[in-house]
C-alpha cells in the first residue's frame, strides 16, 4: 500500500461524494427565499451591497414583524460569481427546497431561468435586468421584470436629455454616444436608442466595450474625436469605474455623462476621485439612510448584530435597490398568502400574487418607503409596471436625486416590446395566453 493508492482512494472519495452532499433537507412552515449572489469575482464590488440589501430586508421582516403574516422567512445565499454555469448549479441545488421566487441577478442566469420557470413553477423576478421582452405577461407568465426595463430606461434617458436641452425637438442634430458592455445586457438599450434617434433626429454612435472592460482607451479616444453632447453608459462591474475615470480624464463635462442604473453606485465613482463629480446615472430608488425602512434596518438588524455587511454601507445605491427588490417579492408573497388563505403558498400562488401586485403610495408609506421608490401595479399583460426612473448625481461625496420621476415613452417602447415577446416566446415554444380569460 503506497501513498499513491491512498491518493487514488482520496480522489475517488472526493469525486463520488461531491454531488451527494447536495441532499435536500425538508423545510416546514417557513417561506423559503433563496438568494443568488456574487460576493467574489470581478463583479463583487457591485454584487456585495446588493446581496446585503436583499438579506437585510428579509432579516428585518423576521426580526420586526416575525416574517410575512406571521410566518418566518428562511433564506440561503448561493454564490454565482455572476457566472451562468455556477448560477445554474445554484438554482438546481436550491430548487428542491421549494423557493417561492428567484432573483437571478445576472442576465445570463436570467435567460436560463426564464426557460425553466414555467417547467419548475417558480416565478422569476429580474428587477430591472434580464430579458426586456419578458415584460409581456401574455407570453411570459412566470417572469417579472418590474418596476421597469432597459428599453423604458433608455427612452427615459432620451426624455431627460430633451428636458435638459429644452425640449425633445431640440435633440435634432445633437450627438449621443452609447458606451456599452459588449454582451446581451449592454446591447439591450440599442434598439430603443436607434428608434428614438430616427424619431428625434439625433445622431447616435454605439461604442462597445468588451468584457470585462478594464481596457477602454480606444473607446474614449473615439469619444473625444466625436465630441458628443451626451454620453450614455451601460456598464457593470469593473467596467463602470474605468468608464467614469476615462470620461474624467478626457475632461468631458461629467454632468453630460449618464449611466444606466447599473452604472451608478458608490463603487463606480469613488475610484475616479474628484473627476467623477457631477457624473449622473438613472435610478430606481433613492439613495441614503433617511428613510424609515433603512432606520428600521439599522435598529432591528444592525443593532442586534445580525447585519449582512458593514453598517456604513447601508443606504448605498445598490443596497437600497436590494431592499426594494425584496420588498416587492415579499409583498407579492404576502398577497398570495392573504388571497389564498394559506401559510405556505405554492409557486403558482406567488405568481398570482406578483401578477396582482399593487404597491400603492399609501402602502409604500406603511412600509416606511415614502419617496424611496415609486408605486407599481402589475397586470396579466404588463409585467413591467411601466415604472418611471429618476436621475441621480454624484456630488463628490454622495449620490443625490436631481430629477423628478421621468415617465418612459410607453408609446415607443411597448409595441416593440410586444413584437420582441412574440419572437422570444416562439423560440421557447410558448403560446400566447388570453388575459381576458384570467381572473
Amino acid at each position, binding site marked *: 500500500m*503506497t*501513498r*499513491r*493508492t491512498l*491518493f*487514488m482512494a482520496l*480522489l475517488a472519495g*472526493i*469525486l463520488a*461524494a*461531491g*454531488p451527494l*452532499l*447536495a441532499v435536500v433537507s425538508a423545510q416546514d412552515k417557513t417561506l423559503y427565499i433563496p438568494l443568488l*449572489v456574487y*460576493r*467574489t469575482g470581478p463583479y*463583487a464590488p457591485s454584487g*456585495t451591497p446588493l*446581496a446585503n440589501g436583499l438579506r437585510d430586508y428579509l432579516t428585518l421582516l423576521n426580526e420586526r414583524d416575525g416574517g410575512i403574516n406571521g410566518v418566518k422567512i428562511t433564506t440561503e*445565499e*448561493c*454564490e454565482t*460569481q455572476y457566472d*451562468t*454555469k455556477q448560477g*445554474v*448549479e445554484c438554482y*438546481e*441545488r436550491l*430548487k*428542491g427546497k421549494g423557493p417561492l421566487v428567484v432573483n437571478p441577478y445576472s*442576465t*445570463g442566469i436570467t*435567460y*436560463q431561468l426564464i*426557460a*425553466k420557470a*414555467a*417547467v419548475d413553477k417558480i416565478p422569476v423576478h429580474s428587477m430591472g435586468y434580464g*430579458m*426586456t*421582452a419578458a415584460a409581456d405577461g401574455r407570453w411570459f407568465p412566470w417572469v417579472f421584470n418590474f418596476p421597469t426595463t432597459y428599453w423604458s430606461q433608455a427612452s427615459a434617458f432620451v426624455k431627460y436629455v430633451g428636458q435638459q436641452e429644452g425640449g425633445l425637438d431640440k435633440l435634432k442634430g445633437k450627438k449621443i454616444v452609447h458606451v456599452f458592455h*459588449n*454582451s*446581451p445586457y449592454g*446591447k*439591450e438599450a440599442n*434598439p430603443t436608442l436607434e428608434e428614438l434617434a430616427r424619431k428625434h433626429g439625433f445622431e447616435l454612435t454605439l461604442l*462597445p466595450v*468588451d*468584457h470585462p472592460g478594464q481596457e477602454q482607451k480606444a473607446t474614449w479616444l473615439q469619444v473625444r474625436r466625436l465630441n458628443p453632447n451626451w454620453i450614455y453608459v451601460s456598464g457593470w462591474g469593473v467596467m463602470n469605474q474605468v468608464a467614469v475615470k476615462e470620461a474624467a480624464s478626457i475632461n468631458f463635462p461629467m454632468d453630460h455623462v449618464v449611466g444606466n442604473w447599473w452604472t451608478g453606485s458608490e463603487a463606480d465613482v469613488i475610484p475616479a476621485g474628484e473627476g467623477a463629480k457631477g457624473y449622473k446615472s438613472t435610478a430606481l430608488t433613492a439613495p441614503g439612510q433617511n428613510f424609515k425602512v433603512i432606520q428600521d434596518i439599522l435598529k432591528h438588524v444592525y443593532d442586534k448584530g445580525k447585519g449582512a455587511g458593514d453598517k456604513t454601507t447601508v443606504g448605498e445605491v445598490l443596497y437600497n435597490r436590494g431592499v426594494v427588490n425584496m420588498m416587492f417579492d415579499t409583498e407579492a408573497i404576502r398577497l398570495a398568502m392573504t388571497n389564498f388563505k394559506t401559510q405556505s403558498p405554492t409557486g403558482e400562488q406567488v405568481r398570482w400574487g406578483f401578477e396582482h401586485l399593487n404597491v400603492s403610495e399609501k402602502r409604500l408609506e406603511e412600509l416606511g418607503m415614502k419617496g424611496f421608490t415609486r408605486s407599481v401595479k402589475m397586470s396579466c399583460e404588463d409585467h413591467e409596471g411601466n415604472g418611471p426612473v429618476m436621475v441621480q448625481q454624484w456630488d463628490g461625496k454622495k449620490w443625490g436625486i436631481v430629477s423628478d420621476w421621468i415617465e418612459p415613452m410607453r408609446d415607443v417602447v411597448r409595441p416593440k416590446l410586444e413584437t*420582441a415577446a412574440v*419572437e*422570444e416566446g416562439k*423560440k*421557447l*415554444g410558448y403560446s400566447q395566453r388570453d388575459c381576458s380569460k384570467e381572473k
Partner: protein
Amino acid sequence: MIYREAGQFKTTYASDQAIFPIAQDRWFVWIGLAVAFVVPPLVANEYWLQAVLIPFLIYALAALGLNLLTGYAGQLSLGTGGFMAVGAYAAFKLATAFPWLNVIVAFLAAGVIAALVGVLFGIPSLRIKGFYLAVATLAAQFFLIWLFNKVGWFVNYAPSGTATAPPRTMAGVMVTGPQATAPVRYVLALALVVGLAFIAKNLVRGRVGRCWMAIRDRDIAAEIIGIKPLPTKLLAFAISSFYCGVAGAELLFLYLGSVETLAFDINLSFLVLFMVIIGGLGSVLGSFLGAGFIVLVPIFLTNAPRWIGLGLPTDTQKQIELMVFGGLIVFFLIVEPRGLARLWSVTKEKLRLWPFPH
C-alpha cells in the same frame, strides 16, 4: 489478484489487438456503460443530471478533443472555447434554418463546420510550434468570440444577442428546449460521448494516432520516416475541432439551453486545457478523469461545509473553495505530473501484482 490475467490466452490477432485486451477491463467497461445508461436516468434527481452529469459529459468530450490535438499530436491550443462556440452557433443556425433536421445530424454537421474552422486556424502550425502556436490559437479564440458577438446573423438577429436552443423532438420525445427532461438530455449526451470516445480510442491506436505521436515526439524524425507534417497536423486540428464543436453544440442544446458568447470565453479554453493536463496528456481515460476532477471537486467543496454543519459566510466559503481547489491542482501535479490517468495505470499495475508485490 483482482486483475489476475492468468488463464487469459490470446489465440488470435483480433483478441491481441482488442481495445481492452484484459477481460477484467472489458467487463468493467461494459458494466460501467450499462450502469451509466440505466442508473442515472432512473435514480438521479434533476440536480445530479443537470448540474453534475451533463456538464461532466460535455466537458469530457471537449477535453477529449483537445487531448487529441495537444496530448497526441503535441500541438498546444488555447482556441478550444472558440471552436466550441463555432459548434454551438453552427448547430443553432442549422437547427433554426432547417427545423426538420435531426438534432444529432445538426450536432455532427456543426462538428464538421468547427473542423473546417479548426483547419483554417491550424495552418500556422506547420511553421510555428509550442508556445508560439498557443498564441496563434489564442487569436482564433478572440477572433471567433468577437465575430459571434459582432455579427447578428449568428443569433438570427435576436435583440438580446443570445442563441436559444429551439425545441426539437427525436422519435416523438423532446430532446432540446425547456420541455426536454434532464434524463433524456443526459442519455443523448452520453450516447454521443460514448460513440465519439470509442472512435477516438480506435483512432489513437491506429495509423493516424501513431502519426500524431510521431510528430509530437520528434517532428523531424517523423518527417524522415515518411509522415507528412502538414496533413497530419491539419488532420489533428480538424478532428480535435470536430470533437470540440460537438461539445459546444451540446453545451447549448443539452446543458444551458441559451448562451451568450461569454459562455465560450478564454476561461473555458483554459478550463479544458487544465482538464487535459490534470487528467493526463495523451490518454482518452485522462480526458474523463480530468473533466471529472474539474467539474466535481468545486461542487464537492461548495457543499462540504454545509454538509458538516459549518455555516460560513458565502464569500469566505467561496474563497476557501478556490484556495483548496488551487491547492489540490498543485498537489496532484506534484505527486503525479503525468496526470490522473497515470495514477490509474500505476494503481492497475499494483492491482495486477497484489497481494504479492515484488
